[in-house]
């Protein structure tokens, strides 16, 4: 049940949001997501997501002499993130307005 209500924590979206700050390698992505979004991604989940996002052209790898290859958001990835963020903002706005009106919840 928790998973169904936890769509905001979709790993692909979290990775896109993390890379929106600056290019990062795998470990830096997991650290950033854990610290700023409170979600801990496992290695399997992270690289399944990276592979999928790279395949769709939403992120791209940067040249690196190290095994820790950084990734950056592409223009298509930024567009996808913007679209999803706007959708989430709309849902959030409606939810907060109705919570205030019907439950007296002031929000954060």
């Amino acid at each position, binding site marked *: 049940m928790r998973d169904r209500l936890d769509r905001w924590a979709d790993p692909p979206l979290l990775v896109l949001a993390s890379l929106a700050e600056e290019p990062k390698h*795998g470990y830096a992505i997991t650290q950033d997501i854990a610290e700023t979004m409170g979600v801990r991604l496992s290695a*399997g989940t992270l690289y399944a997501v990276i592979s999928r996002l790279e395949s769709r052209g939403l992120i791209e790898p940067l040249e690196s002499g190290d095994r820790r290859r950084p990734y950056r958001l592409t223009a298509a990835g930024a567009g996808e993130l913007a679209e999803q963020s706007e959708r989430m903002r709309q849902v959030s706005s409606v939810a907060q307005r109705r919570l205030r009106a019907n439950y007296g919840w002031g929000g954060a």
Partner: protein
Amino acid sequence: MSARRPRRAQGAGVLARVALGLYPPAWRARYGDEVQALLEDSGAGVRAAASLAWHAVPAWAWPARHLHDRPGRMRASLATTGMAWALLAGLAAVFVQLAQAQGSSQALTLARHPVIQGSYWVFDGAVIVSVLAVAAGGLPLWVRMVRDARGADRRPELAGLLAPAVVPVVFVAASTVIVGLARRPGVRVVPWQARPVADLASGMIGPWWFLALVVAGLAAAAVSAAGPAVALRRLRPDGRAVVLATRAAGLAAAAMGLAGAASIVAAVGLYLWAPADAGYHVGWQLAVYLPAVSLAAAVAIISSGRGLRAAREPAVA
């Protein structure tokens, strides 16, 4: 405690490396080093290994397109489908031996239960379609690869391609000899056997010999499929023969999956409805057979499906 922790971390690291080994070669080549680095940085635990192993399944079933070219995806699909199909064919042979080939008990069962009879018909028809599909779609590619391997004097690949023709014949010949010896009362097949291996009650070989033959048969099926799979990977054929084989593999996998489903219906039916003395009420046999058939059929169907998707894409000039 302090000595135990590094050992546990070491064990988890080994588990993670094993889990990484479950991924397709192209995936490992592209991301393997990065994942290793991440595991070193974050500390590989059992959870990380389990997560890696879990995500290996979709990496095979839905391979990332940027990692595989179209012919490569078709070849990988053919190799995986071939292995799963061979296992299904081996299991189908076991099913035939245990069910359809058992004359007296079957006559009683079939007379009473048309569901089992219907399942047998579906099974037979689906197996015939599947074998014909393998022959029609696989032979042109096989002949082409044999020609390529001979032309380039690549003997290991040639040996691999001959495996599906030679290994089953060797297995059938060896098992015929073993069954002949095991059926003769008074003959000791192996020196350490305390008594003759003969089930005098039914006149058939005993259960341990049967089990040994089943294991050997499944091993023979695996070797028969592994030979062409390795040849596919090394010779890297391309063109119409690969597309035809991929389409035929889709049909063969679907038909063999249907045969597997029909055999499961029949096996469950025999378990439920066969006469008490017919020998079909052994739960562990079903507990092994059902998951084995389901898993092999799932692998064959998923893998052939991904090959069909690649075959539908336009060829790059």
